[in-house]
């Protein structure tokens, strides 16, 4: 056997799994299709014609959720630090100012201090004070890390606790768009993960953005002797007698290993295994997005970090019926994580729900025109939300569901993966495990914890089948 483990994908979960396995002497190789690491949370740059040099951009990361203060214990982030032997200081976290859930009839602010959201709810929805307290209590007591849990509808469960539909919609909006693979609803265990990571713990941004996290992981992996190969696209997962034994790359090269950990998604993994192993093909999720990134000549004047905007009484979380849906948006002002830096350019990112099929069917010229239309709509929203921000636009970029598909491998540009999850990481094929989004922990911290816990469970604790 050439390797103890092959990991498909150098995203957050793959790198974290790789660190754990390499740390304890396993011979590991991570195979990454792209020429840079990060997966769904990666980065790129564009030339800066105004000031020379380049402008760095993140894809994915609006916020690192699960914020903790230095020394806080027993939280997902602190578990991750211990497991990867990283220090809190390494991340150079800048906490958010506050974020805002912005509906036509009401607005709710929240921050990394849960009391702000509580007081906002008490003020706007005084009749829901006890209901909200009961919800928080339910969330606190729920063990979302139980790997044996099945799907439970969040809306059904919430309807018995929160009786004002507007409050229910407002609380759900950020949690759905920051993590749900399901349309208009989410699994209750995932709701709890999201509620804790957004409302109890909150947002921060590592200095320098997602690059800092990726560099920490890649360096730690290399330090432990792990091997990382770029431009190595896995064409097939090889099996013998119902067990995974290796992979074949696009160039025909074959690698063999005892364990294979795939972060490319459950449907994407199943597609690469010979027929007959998966009784039914896992379903591809439909939630995909469009993001417009604007660079202005000065920093934003408003102090919110992220605005979850919705221009309707209910929150529709489903693929857009017409390319994109401007009824709702997530507007991220990354400069507001570091309010002390007031000089220099300002960035605003606007994310809309999209429709993969329609974008995939566009011919090139129509595609570019459609992207321009999206950018115009997003610019109008920025004007509406921040009327006093009189900055000049210097740079615009839009990425579509097809861009996401091209760079991440995720079929149909789906961002939160399949609606079929495998919480214990197992697949019908022995020695083949799923990590990352389709194992079911969410966000960047969740993805890393997914890689860690699956590597622990299947790569370190159990003998191979």
């Amino acid at each position, binding site marked *: 056997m050439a390797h103890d483990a092959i990991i498909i994908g150098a995203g957050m979960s793959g790198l974290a799994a790789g660190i754990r396995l390499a*740390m*304890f*002497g396993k011979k590991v190789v991570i195979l990454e299709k792209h020429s840079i690491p990060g997966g769904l949370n990666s980065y790129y740059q564009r030339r800066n014609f105004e000031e020379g040099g380049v402008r760095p951009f993140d894809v994915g990361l609006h916020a690192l959720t699960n914020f903790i203060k230095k*020394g806080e*214990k*027993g939280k997902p982030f*602190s*578990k991750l630090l*211990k*497991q990867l*032997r990283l*220090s809190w200081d390494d991340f150079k976290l800048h906490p958010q100012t506050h974020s805002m859930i912005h509906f036509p009839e009401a607005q709710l602010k929240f921050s990394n201090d849960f009391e702000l959201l509580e007081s906002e709810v008490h003020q706007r929805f005084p009749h829901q004070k006890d209901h909200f307290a009961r919800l928080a209590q339910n969330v606190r007591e729920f063990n979302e890390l139980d790997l044996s849990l099945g799907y439970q509808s969040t809306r059904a469960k919430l309807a018995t606790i929160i009786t004002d539909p507007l409050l229910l919609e407002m609380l759900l909006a950020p949690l759905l768009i920051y993590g749900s693979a399901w349309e208009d609803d989410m699994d209750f265990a995932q709701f709890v993960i999201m509620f804790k990571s957004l409302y109890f713990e909150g947002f921060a941004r590592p200095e320098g953005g997602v690059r800092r996290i990726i560099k920490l992981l890649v360096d730690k992996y290399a330090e432990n002797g792990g091997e990382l190969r770029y431009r190595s696209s896995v064409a097939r997962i090889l099996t013998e007698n119902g067990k995974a034994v290796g992979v074949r790359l696009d160039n025909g090269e074959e690698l063999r290993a005892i364990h294979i950990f795939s972060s490319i998604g459950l449907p994407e993994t199943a597609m690469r295994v010979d027929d007959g192993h998966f009784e039914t093909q896992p379903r591809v999720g439909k939630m995909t997005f469009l993001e417009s990134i604007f660079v202005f000549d000065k920093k934003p004047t408003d102090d919110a970090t992220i605005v979850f905007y919705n221009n309707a009484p209910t929150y529709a979380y489903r693929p857009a019926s017409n390319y994109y849906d401007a009824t709702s948006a997530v507007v991220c002002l990354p400069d507001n994580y570091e309010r002390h830096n007031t000089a220099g350019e300002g960035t605003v990112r606007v994310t809309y729900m999209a429709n993969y099929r329609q974008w995939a069917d566009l011919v090139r010229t129509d595609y570019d025109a459609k992207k321009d239309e999206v950018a115009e709509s997003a610019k109008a929203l920025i004007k509406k939300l921040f009327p006093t921000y009189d900055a000049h636009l210097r740079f615009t970029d839009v990425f579509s569901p097809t861009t996401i598909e091209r760079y991440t491998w995720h079929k149909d540009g789906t961002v939160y993966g399949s609606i079929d999850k495998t919480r214990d990481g197992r697949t019908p094929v022995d020695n083949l495990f799923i990590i990352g989004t389709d194992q079911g922990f969410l966000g960047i911290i969740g993805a890393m914890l997914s890689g*860690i*816990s699956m590597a*622990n469970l299947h790569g*370190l*604790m159990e003998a191979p089948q």
Partner: protein
Amino acid sequence: MNQEQVRQVVLNIISDIAPDEDMTTLKDEVSLREQLDLDSMDFLDIVMELRKRHKVEVPAEDYPKLATMASCVSYLTPKMQ
């Protein structure tokens, strides 16, 4: 290794796994989990580090024997001769 050396081995491993913990006030007869922020993932790391650094195997059924510092020492000392 004598008992004091084995105790030091366990201390070193725990301080590498949980660098922010204060080990100076550790009570040997009280459960480690009660005194330190250690979860099941951390106990796995103690086991993995024992294997990596000292070639000592702790099978899963013996994990409860690592509950306190005193029980760690009495369980591990014969294995580290």
